[in-house]
């Protein structure tokens, strides 16, 4: 290639670079997201402070001053926290097994099983758990047939039922985030620890676990945020009696039609999850969410 050829090629490619990926291609998606996502979410804030044409914070005073709402907020946080801990404890061994130990051909099926709950509606999962936990459900039927209990044990419509449902729904997320970190971990580090005399357990505790900590915290934060904003699972498995933040929002909008109050609760929920999402972003700062362009030479 002569120098002239090269410069022609270079000029052509700069021209072509502006030809592909014109910015107006972003326009349709941007408009749709602005109208149907950004605007409605942003609207929640003014709706919570405007009433009868004037600004007032009555709704917030009601939410933050009333012991009942504080109790519900506290319960939401507590249920989400416990579910998150259980999700990480269950998710870690699965992620470890799937990424480090299983044969390649099984990996695909493991992923399919992990992902299956994500592709069914929250209601379907609740139907399944209602059949398992209910008074005439599978567990109670077994317990009674074994003679371990006379009357059915009350499991459905309790905090435990809600947490079971939340954990079942969120375990895939914790497995996926932890697995993505474990997958990129250099196995040689662990091997080195072993060669230097560490027992397998020591090697895991002092090498692998600390190295996978970012995945664990990212997974935990994600699961916590999702638990906190879940509506269907706590509403149905709690039998409508055990309220969480999300069910209060639903109630104010769909049942009692107190929209300012509903918006205020929604804003509190938005702020709490926003804070959690921010923490998630900080943990994952160096990870790229979109595929990087490896096509450009």
């Amino acid at each position, binding site marked *: 290639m002569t120098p002239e050829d090269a410069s022609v090629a270079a000029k052509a490619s700069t*021209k*072509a670079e502006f030809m*592909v990926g014109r910015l107006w291609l972003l326009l*349709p*998606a*941007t408009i749709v997201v602005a109208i*149907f*996502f950004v605007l409605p*979410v942003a*609207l*929640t804030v003014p709706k919570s402070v405007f009433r009868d044409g004037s600004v007032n914070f009555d709704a917030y005073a009601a939410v933050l001053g009333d012991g009942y709402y504080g109790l519900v907020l506290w319960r939401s946080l507590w249920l989400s926290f416990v579910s998150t801990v259980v999700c990480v404890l269950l998710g870690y061994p*699965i992620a470890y097994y*799937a990424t480090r*130990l299983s044969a390649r051909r099984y990996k*695909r099926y493991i*992923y*399919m*099983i*992990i*992902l*299956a*709950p994500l*592709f*069914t*509606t929250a*209601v*379907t999962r609740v*139907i*399944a*758990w209602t059949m*398992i936990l209910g008074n*005439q459900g*599978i567990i109670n039927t077994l317990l009674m047939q074994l003679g371990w209990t006379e009357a059915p044990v009350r499991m459905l419509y309790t905090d435990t039922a809600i947490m079971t449902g939340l954990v*079942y729904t969120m375990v*895939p997320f914790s497995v*996926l*985030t932890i697995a*993505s970190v474990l997958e990129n971990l250099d196995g040689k580090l*662990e*091997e080195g*620890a*072993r060669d230097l*005399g560490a027992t*397998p357990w020591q090697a895991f505790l002092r090498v692998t676990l600390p190295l996978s900590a970012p995945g664990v915290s990212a997974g935990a934060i994600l699961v916590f945020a999702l638990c906190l*904003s879940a*509506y*269907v699972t706590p509403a*149905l498995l709690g039998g409508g009696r055990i309220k969480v933040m*999300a069910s209060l*929002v639903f109630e104010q909008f769909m049942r009692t039609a107190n929209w300012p109050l*509903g918006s205020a609760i929604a804003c509190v*929920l938005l702020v709490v*999850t926003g804070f959690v*999402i921010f923490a998630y972003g900080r943990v994952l700062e160096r990870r790229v969410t*979109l*595929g*990087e*362009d490896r*096509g*450009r030479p």
Partner: protein
Amino acid sequence: MTASVAIPTRKRRSQSDTSGIGPTGRMVLGSISGLLLMLLIAPMLVLLLMSFSNADFVVFPPTAFSLKWYYKFFAMGDFLSALLTSFEVAVAASLIATLIGLPAAYVLVRRRFPGRRALAAVFLSPLMVPQIIVGVGLLQLYTALGGANSLTGLVMAHVVAVLPYVIRTVGAALSTTNVSIEEAAADLGANQLEVLAFVVVPMIKGGVLAAALFALIMSWINVEISIFLTTTGSYTLPVLLYNYMEYSLTPVVVVAGSVSIVVAVALVAVIDRFIGLSSAMRL
């Protein structure tokens, strides 16, 4: 610290076993994971099994099996119309999300411009912002515009909710392709849309299909947004099921749940064929 370190003269393990936990540890961990995986899949299997029960109530174990409740399900007008609504909304939302998401993902991957990361974050944020908040926000917006409970409104809500999946899946597929082919096409006079339609899409058609199916599934199973934007007569299947579940668990509900699972599993299998689930689901 100055004491000489005794280096154990153990045999190096085989190259494939980098975990270094030995056969016993491997077996223990394997059984724990196996058990947990079984717990993940068991509720779905129970649901499918129970849907074939002949009994008039949801009782375990089923004593006789039949398709009785499936016939009942398909004979019930509200379920059938909800099934149809869900299908229409999912197809429309998936098509629109793919049509607008593909070019957006393309620019986000191919071009560097100010605000690119922020824009990508906004496109992906429906994954993180509580759906219930999107739902109430849209309910207020539509009510203000005088069009609550319209099918179009529901479709557009789903488009936004499934757009992140399209952008991510297409973005992942694009990052493996070579930009010079597109530049060559542009040099030869193809305009931007022609490059997209005749060069990019054929190169990543598996990824595009997977993205569309992803969008289809996520719309098909959505309930937390739909619940605010539908009313009697316009219910989607998950919302109708939710309403039934607020009262009681009946055999027809179990059948409807099973139908929903079967559709989802079929779609997942197709996605896996085209792009591989693990690569599509990277978080």
